């Protein structure tokens, strides 16, 4: 190899590297994703820089494998999965190709789909999908318990087929949950595109979900913990909550306590059930948890009351002004906390006042409690 030629290659390499520095996208995203036409999680698409093949989903209907790509951002953090799916949709032996990009989040939930330029979706009669049809398809795909679940293609197309497990009594359908009717299927799918809807739904809700879930623990790191916890998605928050180690409660205390009041009862009760003992004893946690008692759902309140043994008298005092929100059993549990303790004078006074509250239906239980307390 001559020196000139090497010099020429160096120049080309330097030029290429400069080009790449100026336009990193060219180098790192050789095959940009198609636009997500419909997505329930737009933030997952921000800053995707690279893709790598993660696994395949198998379509038993057509015996095709579709590779699924894991997409990462500029920091190398996993953001979503996608599959470029090309599949035949066949009716009466006549097949037409459909190409569509399917997106899942890191928990395996479908989050949207995209189309490739020049490959719009069409109906049975070759009419193009309209915007409302695309919306309807997205809604159908979002529903993992849609009417197609556990349906075979033949169930949908055989005009004589009865809906699965349809139960009737004297000609009336009895169980709304027992099986999908043809009407329910018609209502759920894009008119004139039943076959396409069925095929795409089966791909979306096939084996990808499981594969993605299995992969997640191996991808999990501190950055993902943080991203999930700070996500607006309830499923991400809940997953992150379940992964917390003892020390994480201190690291993420601000966010966790914010989620505690702002999230669902399911999140709250899970958090309280798994909260390590030492945080129950910390002033910051006590203040935020017990201070929010009045805003919480009934089941979370129960767990706070039963947690008093770990949280102590200070927290029990914090709850005292909220006694009128307690159910009968919550009040009983609250009073039993004080049962074996020497009742501080201010607690006794407040309880005495509460026992006279005619607007609180269980005031009589406080009265009985105080009677027993007085008995030597």
């Amino acid at each position, binding site marked *: 190899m001559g020196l000139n030629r090497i010099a020429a290659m160096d120049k080309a390499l330097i030029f290429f590297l400069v080009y790449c520095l100026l336009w990193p996208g060219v180098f790192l995203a050789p095959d940009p994703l198609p636009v997500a036409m419909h997505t329930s999680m737009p933030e997952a698409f921000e800053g995707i820089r690279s893709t790598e093949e993660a696994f395949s989903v198998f379509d038993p209907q057509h015996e095709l494998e579709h590779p699924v790509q894991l997409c990462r951002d500029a920091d190398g953090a996993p953001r979503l999965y996608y599959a470029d799916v090309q599949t035949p949709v066949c009716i009466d032996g006549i097949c037409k190709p459909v190409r569509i990009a399917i997106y899942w989040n890191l928990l395996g939930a479908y989050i949207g789909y995209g189309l490739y330029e020049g490959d719009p979706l069409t109906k049975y009669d070759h009419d193009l999908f309209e915007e409302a049809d695309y919306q309807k398809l997205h809604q159908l795909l979002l529903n993992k318990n849609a009417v197609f679940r556990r349906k075979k293609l033949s169930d949908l197309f055989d005009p004589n087929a009865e809906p699965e497990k349809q*139960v009737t009594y004297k000609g009336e359908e*009895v169980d709304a949950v027992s099986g999908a009717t043809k009407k329910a299927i018609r209502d759920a799918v894009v008119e004139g595109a039943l076959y396409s809807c069925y095929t795409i739904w089966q791909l979306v809700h096939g084996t990808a979900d499981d594969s993605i879930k299995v992969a997640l623990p191996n991808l999990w790191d501190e950055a993902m913990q943080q991203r999930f916890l700070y996500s607006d998605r309830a499923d991400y928050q809940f997953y992150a909550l379940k992964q917390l180690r003892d020390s994480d409660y201190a690291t993420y205390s601000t966010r966790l306590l914010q989620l505690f009041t702002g999230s669902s009862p399911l999140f709250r009760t*899970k958090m309280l059930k798994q909260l390590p003992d030492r945080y129950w004893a910390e002033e910051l946690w006590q203040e935020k948890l017990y201070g929010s008692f009045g805003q919480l759902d009934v089941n979370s309140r*129960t767990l706070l009351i039963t947690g008093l043994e770990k949280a102590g008298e200070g927290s029990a005092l914090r709850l005292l002004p909220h006694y009128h929100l307690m159910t009968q059993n919550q009040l009983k549990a609250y009073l039993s906390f004080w049962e074996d303790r020497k009742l501080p004078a201010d607690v006794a006074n407040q309880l005495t006042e509460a026992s006279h509250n005619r*607007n609180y*239906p*269980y005031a*009589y*239980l406080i009265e009985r409690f105080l009677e027993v307390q007085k008995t030597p």
Partner: protein
Amino acid sequence: MKNVCQYWIFTLLFCSSVFQSTAQEGILLEAEGFLFPGGWVVDPQFVQQMGSPYLMAHGMGQPVDPARTEVEINESGTYHFWARTKNWAPGNWSPPGQFLLTVNDAALSDTLGRNPGWGWAYAGKAKLSTGTATLELIDLTGFNGRCDAIFLSQGEVPPPGYGKKLAEWRRQMHQEPLAPESEKSYDLVVTGGGIAGCAAAIGAAEQGLKVALIHDRPVLGGNASSEIRVHTLGIYGKFERILRLLDTEHYPNGSAEAKKDQEKRDKNVKAYKNIDLFLNWRAYDAASEDSTIQYVDARHTATNERMRFRAPLFVDATGDGWIGYWAGAAYSYGRESVHKYDEEWDEWGELWSPEEADNFVMGSSILWQTHEGEEATDFPQQPWAKVVARTHEATAGEWYWEFSRNDLHQIEDGEEIRDHLLKAIYGSFANAKALPENSHYQLTWVSYLLGKRESRRLLGDHIFTFQDVVNNTPFPDSVVMEDRAVDVHYQRNLRHEEKPDFLSEALFYRTGRYYIPYRSLYSRNIDNLFMAGRCFSCSHIGLGGPRVMRTTGQMGAAVGHAAALCIKHEVKPRAIYTDHLEELWGLIESQQWTRP
């Protein structure tokens, strides 16, 4: 009627012999023993919690006919009257269950049903002459006023209000000896006349055993009865012939069609000459010695007559596992940690099975029914119902009207759960009735009996779990089989706080055929106790599939046959598995097409 008369005579003798000599001690009248209950119903569901069956004015908003009784007065004078009652919806409104007590047709001064929590409420005083006095309970609302007992005394001191003191006082007033007045002996005593209990009784009776079937309602079937009206689901397994005598058509839950199947069931069970049927008898105790149950004690829900049932073998088909509980059988309650039996289903995670064990089990239901009448009718909103129903509107109920909460125990807090569902029904119906299109709807039926899904589970040699379902595990002793999906419920407001707290969602895990071994149908530590029905040996998730009534019926029929072999070989239930399994199989196979 015979029993009522007997009780009346007993009461008169009792009152005259005990109390009339010292009238200061007073007279205690149990409301469920009133001679003529009128439109009031006897509710024995919560005896273990509040002390006694009681009368309830379940009129769905229309006041019911008065309940009436008579009492013999031996000493004339001024008597003070108290009623043991409660305001079942305490709050800042007029209590829903108000009623009056009349004495010789004159109402006493104080309206009853206003005190929060069960206790003695003062009704007023009346001058009584010697002779017969007539007492009546006058319902004022039709909204579930309730009266446990009436106490009258020339003294001014009410009886003890609650707890052990009340129970002790009551025993003294009734002068009850420790043991019941009478005793009977059988080959097998089955407690609980739901589908499982009935099938157990039939299975054993067909094999020649003399069986007592004790049930605390006037009709058989439990959740499938015309009083609760859940249709039976599941397959028949090896017991189609027996279960067809007992099951229901697949009518909508809550349908009045349940009455036809009720007639069929009652007639079929009564046709067995060697089944002694004790309807309206509720068991209240079981005693064991050396891990063996000696007897079950039961009390008539209206007359309070008591009976001791002795047998070498017992079946707990009470649903709540009462017999096992009293006898000291090992049991579980609540949701196990998902890790305990490896019961994870990733798709639903915490809603399916929690990481940390808790007591948040599936809830209980109250079914109800409406119809569209000829004329428009009103059903005004009640403030105590509105707080539960909020804006929810409904003109019909279904299985998903279900209530569970993590501070409520499905047995201990049954009355509160039932009452919450009544508020939900009345409130949701009133919301719907406010719409013009619903003006012709009328309530035709609202159950007052809780249809429970889950409570105590007695532990056997095998605990049936989700793994047995997932793996379709075949056991050498698979006496029960089922194809039905595992069906576990959660409350909707857990995921969406704004949803009504009385509606549930079902999660279905579908699988192939799975099997329940005989070893899940007898107690691991009480050696003469079988169990059938939802109190069989299983985990929370394990219960999800086979808790329906054809499946529980299979359990009952299986233990009925096993009991017959126990008697034949003079052995305990476990020995059927270890020593006589082939014979049990033979018996089960051969019974399929025999005729009783």
